[in-house]
């Protein structure tokens, strides 16, 4: 059916009070126009005969009857929500990474990926942190912002960080030892170039602010007398 304009649903018999309608049965009979339907059909209410029932498809008896009744697990229709980004984290914010290889490093936030992880870069030249994904929970956001307008990270997505699919190796008996030695993880040149382009614009805007470069190169640590719950980041 072609979509038609929806007329507002009008109630023919509004409730005076719960359970009591405004109009009586005979009035409602008249309102619904059942008299007109009957008149059209020659004084009787139209009857429709049952449609001939289609023969049910012959079911084959099952090959296998399980010994016990096993319960089927209930259907899970849950759709995970996109991760909410903390209000203090905006593109260009300096973040402090709290765990992992780069713990304590101060790093620039670029954007949030579709998986919810944060895309972050050192920049590599300054503190050795490459284009990397980091979870929001392992990060302190500072109130220092870097101008990120010259940086283009549209192309980088979660797929950029996916593991390279390994080629299937044929099992050769004598080749086991040699094959293991050849597996070296070299960063493909494209990733190195991508890093350079992203960092070039960033480093320019970082050098515009005095001391920011040394700041990003240094690691964060708690010193004597620093109370984390009283610190303003």
């Amino acid at each position, binding site marked *: 059916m072609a979509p038609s304009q929806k007329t507002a649903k009008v109630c023919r018999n509004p409730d005076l009070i719960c359970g009591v309608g405004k109009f009586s049965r005979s009035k409602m009979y008249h309102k619904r126009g059942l008299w007109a339907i009957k008149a059209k059909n020659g004084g009787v209410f139209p009857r429709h005969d049952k449609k001939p029932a289609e023969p049910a498809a012959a079911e084959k008896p099952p090959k296998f009857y399980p010994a016990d009744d096993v319960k089927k697990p209930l259907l899970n229709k849950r759709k995970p929500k996109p991760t909410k980004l903390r209000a203090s984290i905006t593109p260009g914010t*300096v973040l*402090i990474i709290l765990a992992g290889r780069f713990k304590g490093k*101060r790093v620039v936030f670029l954007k949030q990926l579709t998986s919810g992880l944060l895309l972050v870069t050192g920049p590599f030249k300054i503190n050795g942190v490459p284009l990397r994904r980091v979870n929001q929970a392992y990060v302190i956001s*500072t*109130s*220092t912002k870097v101008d990120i307008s010259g940086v283009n990270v549209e192309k980088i997505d979660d797929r950029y960080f996916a593991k390279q699919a390994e080629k299937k190796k044929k099992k050769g008996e004598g080749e086991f030892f040699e094959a293991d030695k050849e597996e070296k993880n070299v960063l493909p040149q494209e990733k190195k170039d991508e890093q350079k382009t992203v960092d070039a614009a960033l480093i320019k805007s970082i050098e515009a602010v005095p*001391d*920011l470069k*040394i*700041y990003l190169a*240094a690691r*964060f640590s708690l010193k004597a007398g620093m109370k984390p719950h*009283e*610190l*303003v*980041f």
Partner: protein
Amino acid sequence: PFKRYVEIGRVALVNYGKEYGRLVVIVDVIDQNRALVDAPDMVRCQMNFKRLSLTDITIDIKRVPKKKTLIAAMEAADVKNKWENSSWGRKLIVQKRRASLNDFDRFKLMLAKIKRGGLIRQELAKLKKQNAAC
């Protein structure tokens, strides 16, 4: 033995409670322990003397003045400037500034301290050399 007295017009600093850190004026004394206290930007209320730290500043008012009179008297006595120039007031301002420092600010502060220490040591070395020479 006592230099700062509780009197009408004595300016005090609130050192406990919701109004922590606020400068208020003692406007009336209720009984042995409590005072009626007022400030230009707050509703007049009673406070225990234990919550107040008396300052050196007093203003000239009668008992329980109207808000307008109070504000006028505070302007006349120039409470704000006197407080901000006093050593106590200046210390508080510095404390607040230090507490509100950013992570980047703390880093810059560390660099500045190192630089200053270096300069001092240079001067000291010069003076030592002079002394050793003579």
